């Protein structure tokens, strides 16, 4: 087994390094942690909690729909549930889950010790947590938003959605985007400036490329929904007229602002999934991925083209024909980069001796599910067809095929694949296979019949239907299938909990993978790498017969947090960055900002109080500490510690 133990030529300095990078234990200290692995792990776990919550909401909705004119839920509660289901899955599960994987893995894959702004990282997590708790509090108080996850006006206006529900939605959506944007910026900077020496852009793992593209998309897409939800909040709180037709405003403007974010959002979720797929295929075929350059270009192209598609969500709103034609063409164009990737993966799998472990099964599941979702996507990209099935269950079927196929299957594949790196133990293969089988069968049985329901005219978002519509048999079957699907997800959850203490020990590289995250122990030590690695190829762990032969960096101090900054394109060593220690300020700042946002809902002037509090927290956070003066005397002794 490969081991990094032989790196430790000097146990004393290794211990010092470990203490330097330690996240202090204890309940109160939990709020001071800044290490990217702690934060990334929290993002992933928290997003899975929200995934479970949203899943339960979906099951309750399915119970309501199991028979015609069912009275389990009233219309208002049903509206709250589907709004919360969509909002949670998109904003509180999919994006944070992918970002969490990126935050945990990208620094390991590029061979560094932490992200560029560790405290911003922690701040982003607390913002996410506070927003989620606030939104679910509104659900348990029975005043959750009820205008759908895209909150179309005029329904979402104060005139038609009284009460606090929509206020929770607008403020918490604005709030949680702060978290997504913070994570995006620092993922970009970390990836561009902290890659291991020698890791030129053309040697960067595909997963890291995917995270980079995702982050750039977040930077340009999320501000639009922030601006939009701020305008909606102003419309509701101060009676501005942005989306009110009577005052010269335009309800369609909301749809433009929302979908200009909302369509890239789909790819923000999918692009990292594409990175996961490439990682797993390379490992489980044990040979380099076919068409690395084509795959990178496709990722980047997907990122660009995805910004030109948003109007295909608005085909039935009465837009000019020329515009519709343009967006139909653009929607068809996205098939080109996606197709290139699929063919590269097929070429990678062709003739390889594939290892069919659970992560690979989920990838194969992705192919099946996503292709069906893609095909129905081509169908709804055609305007005449879209006009027929718009707002019917056909669209529900399509979007679940795309999102479950395109994001959930790869994410679960990634979970099985990187779980041993995060915990040091492998997940049970047996439970994993059962879970995969149930999820795969459950997904198809739940969502495939919805295509038919759509053709039969069943509209989306109805809380009940009449018996003589003839929809009850399919709905009955779908509800049963939804529980199969739920059981599949539950098995993975059980698997993850049990394997945490009972799984087989993984060792540093259980899958014989090629990228740097497998060059260190599982889970990694506080300092990630005993010595920062130097790479000279795309597949460092395959090219060096064992990890101990990697070249590495000398001269970083062990008594304070130091890491290497490299140049943007060629990753030549440039300077040394001194990183901050654990800090309580990010948590305090998130409380102050959260206070401002939540306060705004009840008394607008409380926003000013939050603004002022935030200012003090930021000054406390950024107050210079002259770290370069610390321990100047000990510099010579630690000179040779790496």
């Amino acid at each position, binding site marked *: 087994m490969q081991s990094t133990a*032989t790196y430790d030529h000097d146990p004393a300095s290794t211990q010092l390094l470990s203490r330097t990078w330690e996240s202090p234990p204890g309940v109160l200290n939990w709020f001071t942690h800044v290490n990217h692995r702690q934060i990334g792990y929290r993002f992933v776990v928290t997003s899975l909690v929200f995934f479970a919550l949203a899943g339960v909401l979906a099951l309750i909705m399915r119970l309501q729909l199991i028979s015609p004119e069912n009275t389990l839920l009233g219309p208002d509660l049903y509206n709250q549930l589907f709004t919360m289901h969509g909002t949670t899955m998109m904003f509180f599960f999919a994006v944070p889950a992918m970002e969490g994987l990126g935050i945990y893995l990208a620094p390991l894959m590029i061979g560094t010790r932490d992200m560029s702004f560790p405290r*911003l990282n922690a701040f982003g997590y607390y913002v996410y947590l506070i927003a989620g708790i606030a939104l679910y509090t509104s659900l348990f108080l029975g005043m959750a938003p009820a205008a759908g996850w895209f909150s179309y006006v005029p329904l979402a206006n104060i005139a038609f959605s009284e009460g606090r529900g929509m206020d929770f939605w607008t403020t918490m959506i604005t709030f949680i985007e702060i978290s997504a944007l913070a994570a995006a910026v620092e993922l970009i900077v970390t990836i561009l400036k902290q890659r291991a*020496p020698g890791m030129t852009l053309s040697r960067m793992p595909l997963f890291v490329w995917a995270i980079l593209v995702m982050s750039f998309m977040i930077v340009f897409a999320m501000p639009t929904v*922030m601006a939009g939800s701020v*305008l909606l909040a102003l419309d509701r709180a101060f009676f501005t007229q942005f989306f009110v037709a009577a005052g010269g405003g335009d309800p369609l403007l909301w749809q433009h602002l929302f979908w200009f974010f909302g369509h890239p959002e789909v790819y923000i979720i999918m692009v990292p999934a594409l990175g996961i797929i490439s990682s797993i295929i390379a490992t489980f075929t044990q040979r380099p991925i076919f068409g690395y350059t084509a795959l990178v270009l496709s990722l980047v192209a997907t990122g660009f083209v995805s910004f030109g598609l948003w109007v295909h969500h608005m085909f039935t709103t009465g837009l000019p024909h020329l515009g519709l034609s343009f967006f139909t063409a653009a929607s068809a164009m996205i098939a080109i980069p996606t197709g290139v990737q699929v063919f590269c993966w097929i070429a990678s799998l062709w003739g390889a001796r594939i290892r069919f472990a659970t992560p690979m099964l989920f990838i194969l599941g992705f192919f099946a599910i996503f292709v069906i979702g893609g095909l129905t996507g081509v169908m709804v990209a055609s305007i005449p067809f879209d006009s027929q099935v718009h707002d019917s269950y056909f669209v529900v079927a399509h979007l679940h095929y795309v999102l479950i196929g395109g994001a959930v299957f790869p994410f679960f594949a990634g979970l099985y694949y990187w779980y041993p790196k995060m915990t040091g133990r492998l997940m049970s293969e047996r439970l994993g296979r059962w879970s995969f089988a149930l999820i795969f069968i459950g997904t198809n049985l739940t969502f495939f019949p919805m295509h038919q329901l759509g053709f039969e005219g069943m509209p989306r978002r109805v809380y009940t239907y009449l018996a003589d519509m003839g929809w009850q048999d399919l709905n009955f079957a779908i509800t049963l299938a939804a529980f199969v699907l739920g059981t599949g997800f539950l098995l993975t959850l059980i698997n993850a909990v049990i394997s945490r203490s009972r799984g087989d020990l993984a060792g540093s590289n259980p899958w014989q993978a090629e990228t740097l995250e497998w060059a260190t122990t599982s889970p990694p030590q506080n300092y990630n790498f005993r010595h920062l690695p130097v790479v000279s190829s795309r597949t460092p762990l395959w090219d060096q017969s064992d990890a101990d032969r990697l070249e*590495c960096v*000398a001269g970083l101090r062990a008594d304070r947090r130091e890491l290497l900054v490299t140049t943007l394109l060629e990753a030549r060593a440039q300077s040394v960055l001194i990183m901050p220690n654990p800090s309580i300020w990010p948590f305090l700042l998130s409380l102050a900002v959260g206070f401002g946002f939540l306060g705004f809902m009840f008394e607008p002037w409380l926003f000013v109080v939050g603004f002022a509090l935030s200012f003090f927290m930021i000054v406390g956070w950024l107050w210079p500490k002259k770290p370069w003066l610390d321990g100047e005397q000990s510099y010579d002794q630690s*000179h040779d510690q790496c």
Partner: protein
Amino acid sequence: MSTTELNDSRFSIDATDLSRFHSGTDAPIWWGIVGLVLIEMSVVAAFVISYFYLLMSNPQWPPADYPVPELMLPTVSLVLLLISCVTMYMAGRTLNKGQVTAFVLYTVASVALACVVLVIRWQQFQDFEFSLDQHVYGSLVWTISGFHFLHVVSAAIGTAVVAILGMMGFFSSTQRIGVVVDTLYWNFVALAWIPFYLILYWVPRLTYTAGG
């Protein structure tokens, strides 16, 4: 634990003598602030595009009974903000040469210019002859003005903190990244006034039809 001696030839890079100071593009924080500016520019773009979208969906712009906006004071604001970019640039330049006193003076001057702009803008809020809740034109003018006002406030406060730290001797020609990134953000806030100035004060003059 193994105590194998490391083969020295494996240490192909020595970071001992690399700089621990950063002054520009070599500093991650510089890239971080560029990211922040990109995000804010996306917000600015969303506002500008929304403005034109709403302009085009209204038959008359500004609506009847709304006055054509005066140019004088917003133009003064524009000039003052542009001057403040120069003073911030001079602050960075003097700090590079190690002239800390001049650096502090230029920084204070920039904050003072921003404060004058804030006073002028505040006065214009008082002078708006329309409210934000009657017509979307008013909503846009109030919201965009408020958005930019808040940004000038935060840039001024941040730069005031930089000035205070400068007086306390925190900055020097080697340790100046805080000043560099503050200037970066300052320039964004000042220059963001250009598109806002054009859409708030020039576009309605061009589309204005007397008497409606």
